[in-house]
């Protein structure tokens, strides 16, 4: 066990809402919802009324009728995120970006130049506050998992540290839901066995846990409950997937609209993949229903691809198969992920009669690189209106809450 807690998990508080409050002083101290429709972010004042991210707009307004709803400004969020990450990079050479608003930093070996991990975390919070004007919470621990648990517990605008040796003591009284990977379904299974705290889980053998929640989850929970998390902070773009999603309000959504959203998501994700020279074999469709349950469906293609039309065709197949479920349960979010990544292998194609997909993709990419994302649209999207446009802003990597 390392002699100091050297992993910092840094997480911006209510990121989109905080940017809005920073830029519009009239919003400060007020419940702010970044919407419209599904809540993309809620300020802490709004959270006090029980409003949460991903909640339906109507429900949020019912909980807090005087909340201010502002439309998202992705450009501002991307800019703020870049500034914050510049501070992270100045702080430590080992920064692992998790999303637009959170990262792990490994500050091992920096004592002589930058002080103890706790000093560093405090300075990090101060600098983000002073230089970017945003509240940042941080957790400091010996493992990634615990650091993340701590930053969540420290919110809003706080810092929590657990010294080496005290980890299991800290974890013991926490509800099982705080553990990484414990969603409603796993929590429900644990509750059925009267397991509510991490301490209660820690008393079980790995085999017993596996019997309750399954092999993979059981092994992971057993390790986490004993604060065993060997994952290192990894720098750079060791990305394992490309994804994007779009939240929708309640209410029936016509199949054409869902298709238009699927098309725009496929375009956006594959364009980013092509820009990075990446291809992927597995296409995942993610759905969230009106009752907030989720489903994921995936298809693995015969070979890795970054072609818009191939990814789209796979997604359409998956979406078609879910049509009945969507009609029954209502859909509030549609997301896609391309995973099982590989480098583009440079495999050439025979010049068959049909126009080459790669040629079409690369022509569209060039037009968009030069004239902007909106310069060229698919016919299907023109009909759906330009509400899709924000989702096609280049460089919006990581606007994927969760």
């Amino acid at each position, binding site marked *: 066990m390392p002699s100091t807690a050297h992993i910092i998990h840094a997480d911006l508080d209510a990121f989109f809402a905080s940017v809005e409050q920073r830029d519009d002083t009239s919003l400060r101290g007020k419940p702010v919802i970044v919407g419209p429709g599904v809540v993309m972010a809620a300020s802490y004042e709004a959270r006090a009324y029980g409003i949460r991210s991903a909640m339906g707009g109507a429900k949020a307004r019912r909980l807090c009728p005087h909340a201010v709803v502002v439309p998202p400004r992705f450009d501002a969020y991307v800019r703020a995120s870049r500034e914050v990450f510049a501070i992270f990079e100045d702080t430590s050479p080992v920064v692992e970006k998790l999303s637009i608003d959170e990262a792990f930093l490994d500050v091992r070996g920096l004592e002589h130049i930058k002080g103890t991990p706790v000093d560093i975390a405090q300075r990090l919070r101060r600098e983000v506050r002073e230089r970017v004007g945003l509240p940042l919470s941080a957790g400091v621990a010996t493992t990634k998992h615990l650091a993340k648990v701590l930053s969540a517990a420290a919110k809003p605008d706080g810092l929590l540290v657990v010294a080496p040796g005290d980890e299991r003591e800290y974890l013991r009284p926490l509800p099982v839901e705080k553990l990484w990977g414990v969603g409603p379904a796993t929590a429900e299974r644990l509750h059925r066995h009267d397991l509510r705290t991490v301490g209660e889980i820690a008393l079980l053998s790995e085999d017993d846990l596996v019997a309750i929640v399954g092999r993979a989850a059981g092994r992971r929970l057993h390790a986490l409950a004993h604060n065993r998390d060997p994952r290192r902070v990894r720098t750079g773009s060791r990305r394992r997937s490309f994804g994007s999603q779009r939240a929708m309000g309640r209410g029936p959504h016509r199949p054409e609209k869902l298709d238009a959203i699927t098309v725009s998501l496929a375009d956006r994700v594959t364009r980013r993949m092509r820009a990075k020279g990446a291809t992927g074999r597995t296409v995942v469709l993610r759905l969230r229903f009106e009752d907030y349950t989720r489903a994921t469906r995936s298809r693995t293609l015969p070979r890795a691809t970054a072609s818009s039309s191939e990814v789209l065709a*796979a997604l359409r197949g998956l979406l078609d198969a879910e049509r009945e479920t969507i009609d029954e349960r209502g859909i509030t979010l549609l997301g896609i992920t391309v995973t099982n990544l*590989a*480098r583009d292998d440079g495999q050439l*194609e025979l010049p068959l*009669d049909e126009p080459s997909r790669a040629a079409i993709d690369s022509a569209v990419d060039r037009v968009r690189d030069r004239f902007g994302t909106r310069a060229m649209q698919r016919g299907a999207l023109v009909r759906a209106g330009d509400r899709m446009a924000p989702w096609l802003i280049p460089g919006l990597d990581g606007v994927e809450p969760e």
Partner: protein
Amino acid sequence: MKLQTSSADLLAQVGAAARVASTRSAVQALSGVQVVAADGQAELRATDMEVGLRVPLPATVERDGSVVLPARLLLDVARVLPASDVSLELRPSEGDVEIVSGSARYHVRTLRGEDFPPFPEAGDGSVVRVPADAFVATVRKVERSASKDETRPILTGILVSASGSDLKMVATDSYRLSVKETKLESPLDGEFEANVPARALGELARLAEGADDAELTVARQENQVIFSVGGAVLASRLIDGQFPNYNQLLPDGYEHDLIVDSEEVRAVVRRMSLMAQKNAPLRLRFSEGELTVSAQTPDVGEASESLPVPFAGEAFEIGFNPEFLRDGLESVDSEQAKLRLISPLRPGLIEAADDSGFLYLIMPIRLNV
């Protein structure tokens, strides 16, 4: 419906039918096998709406009727039956089928029979008889080149054409193209051309390999083709659209024509492929009198091996997907293969050197990307 059959027959026939049953249709009945007993005979049917299959089930029928059972489950049950005999009986009031073998007793709920489509009727159109061995051998030569990518439906088929004494099949997934022309011993009693899903032909080949019939029959119709062999009937939808004009894909000429020992090259490629993982290409470097095959995968390792080949001219290196290259080399029966190349970014051709009518065109991988 009530019948008695042998556990072995049930397993064999359900095994064939289950391969055709749908694995991901919204219509649950399509994931089932229909057991039909009528006029003292029994048969099993399955379809995913693209391919349909009827296989006879040798059985003693005690009561006519038909029922749809989940294919996967029925197959699992058939695999583990304890006795050599088994009986299946529909219990209409319970909505299940009682399966009894030895002292094991199953009650398997039925799927909605009314959702199960009728088997396609062989309509008008002539029936052509084709030697089963030649047909199967030709399928096996080209099927690996057919695309598995459902987004390019035309390429998931094998273009089959037969007339006179010529049987020809073509398949391509756009990365490689296989053409096999088979000379039949005697002229056919008719002719046909069709783009048949490779999956259907694969199943047909399996059925034919398991049967003793010397011939199979082909009935080409408007939108479908119906094959029969060994008592089994396999119907398949035909693929719409124009199959690529493959003749124009074949280069007019080549820079290099090399006669190589098929088995020697195959063995080298097989050995080197082990080190071409994670999409890494196999590199073929041609220099005066020598071919060096090498592969390298970051964090895994590398390998290289040389063999003499009659190469002359300026040295060059070309990359291929190892699996595609192996598929091509393994489809060459002749002792010697002809390797025809132009340049690192142009297609290469692998041919049987004995005029056995097999061509394999393969696109390279751009190296140093």
